[in-house]
């Protein structure tokens, strides 16, 4: 970075004020929820009242607080093996958020790089990437993910890799379109006429303008990753079956729905709220970052 003397940093520039973000109520609400969820996930061992794995058949199928037969300490009841639902939910947040964060970042990285390259260099790069996307998108995503996990073997990292492999196309398509649009604007011509290299223009001029789209997509993708992980756990292809995943809990709760509905309902609510929060955050970010960037 040769331009140390310039007081206003260029890429940090559009975040110099958080005000447009905080004006958007969706960003504040959803972001706040997700931050709290992340804190819960990080400090799970200290927050969870019980162990998520410990079985106690004497305490099986206890109802949540406020219902008849409630046992103090088991706030959201227990499942048919006597495991504490609240503790499993809390540890489940760890897995859900890890998958969301890592898988979305990987998919975003791969997809954005390919999208930037094909939108900026066009020609053969674009032809190859675009055909690849076409082929990729003709596979049904759920089937492909089941297939991938079957091949890769179950486990957290396989789930993450499977999601990244499937979902990079979302980023690649949108980023390519945005890069094409930005590449046609006059500021790019101006940068070219100054004599900046193609690569310099891509990273320093175009990327900062495509970044808001990538950020919004990342948030949406995290919601999708949470769902895909839940689907895989639901069909028993994610992590080992007694690990506290929300999808696994839903699968387990489905079997005992008539005796103990809480085993199904609470993980379902957690899934719903988390995915909703990611989607709201994504849409809010897109709106909040846009006027600053594009007026």
């Amino acid at each position, binding site marked *: 970075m040769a331009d140390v003397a310039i007081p206003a940093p260029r890429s940090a520039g559009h975040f110099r004020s958080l005000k447009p973000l905080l004006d958007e109520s969706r960003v504040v609400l959803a972001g706040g929820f997700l931050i709290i969820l992340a804190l819960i996930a990080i400090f799970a061992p200290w927050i969870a009242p019980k162990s998520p794995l410990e079985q106690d058949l004497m305490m099986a199928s206890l109802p949540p607080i406020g219902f008849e037969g409630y046992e103090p300490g088991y706030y959201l009841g227990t499942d048919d093996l006597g495991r504490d639902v609240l503790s499993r939910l809390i540890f489940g947040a760890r897995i859900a958020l890890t998958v969301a964060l890592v898988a979305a970042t990987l998919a975003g990285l791969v997809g954005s790089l390919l999208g930037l390259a094909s939108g900026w260099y066009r020609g053969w790069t674009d032809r190859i990437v675009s055909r690849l996307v076409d082929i990729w998108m003709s596979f049904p995503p759920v089937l492909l993910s089941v297939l991938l996990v079957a091949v890769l073997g179950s486990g957290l990292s396989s789930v993450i890799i499977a999601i990244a492999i499937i979902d990079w196309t979302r980023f690649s398509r949108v980023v390519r379109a945005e890069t094409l649009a930005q590449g046609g604007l006059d*500021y790019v*011509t*101006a940068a070219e006429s100054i004599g900046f290299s193609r690569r310099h223009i891509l990273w320093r001029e175009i990327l900062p303008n495509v970044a808001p789209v990538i950020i919004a997509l990342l948030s949406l993708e995290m919601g999708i990753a949470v769902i895909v992980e839940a689907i895989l756990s639901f069909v028993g292809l994610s992590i080992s079956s007694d690990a506290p995943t929300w999808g696994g809990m839903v699968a387990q709760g489905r079997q005992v729905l008539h005796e103990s509905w809480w085993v199904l309902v609470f993980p379902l609510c957690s899934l719903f709220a988390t995915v909703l929060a990611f989607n709201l955050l994504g849409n809010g970010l897109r709106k909040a970052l846009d006027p600053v960037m594009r007026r």
Partner: protein
Amino acid sequence: MTPPLVAIEALSASSVRDGNQPVLRDVSLKLERGEVHGLVGESGAGKSTIAKALLGILPATIHVTGGWLRFEGRDLLTLPHGELRALRGRDITLIPQDPQTALNPARTIEAQLTDGLRMKLGLRGAALRDRALDLLEEVQIRDPARVLGSYPHQLSGGMRQRVLIAAAFAPGPKLVVADEPTTALDVTVQKEILRLIRRMQERHSTAVIFVTHDLGVVAKICDNVTLLYAGKVIEAGTTADLIERPQHPYTKALIAAGPRYDRPGQGLEPVPDSIFQLLRAQIAGSAERTTAS
């Protein structure tokens, strides 16, 4: 004798995308140091193609099929890449058409204004900032310190165009290519911007190629004019000659087609069809001659 600043000789180009449709046919023109030269024509006349060729940013779909494009005697079309890159942005700069999109929305004015100074003149630190402030004052921007820290969306269209003019004149170029710099602006702002370009040009004795479709603008600012139609030079000469004693019927019709403030209520006179037929016949005729020879 030193060669003219710009000498375009028999330049021809065609567009690969439209089935090798010619976009420039045998275009020749000369530009001396400190001269303001208008390139006039309707859309598709090839005026922007010439401007882009001078800046070395022709799209890949346009191929130069013949001729020379000399800048101080050196042919820009065959110049090694490194020399061309050194030339672009220092000796030849651009005032772009649309101030809305010509500034990167994600970077401050200071970062963008100093690009050329940093890259081409090697200025750094306080010297760089001082030069940027001077430039903004020169284009009559009030409170230049505040503007330097602003983002493009915080400035008006006229302000942005002033910044772009400052950026174009920043590295002390010999030639500024102004690509319809006033089309995207309000009429009142247009006048100020034209005056500003003229003043900057005179102060720095820079040559300017002024691309426009507006003969009125040409009359205000240009010393000499080249009128193009479908990639061919129709008429060229000093502005006074061309406007007051047009030779070609197309030029006459164009001048007649402009709004006349001295005769209000008369409406606009469209260019008659017969003239376009004449133009087409002339272009076809000269194309045959070229292939025959």
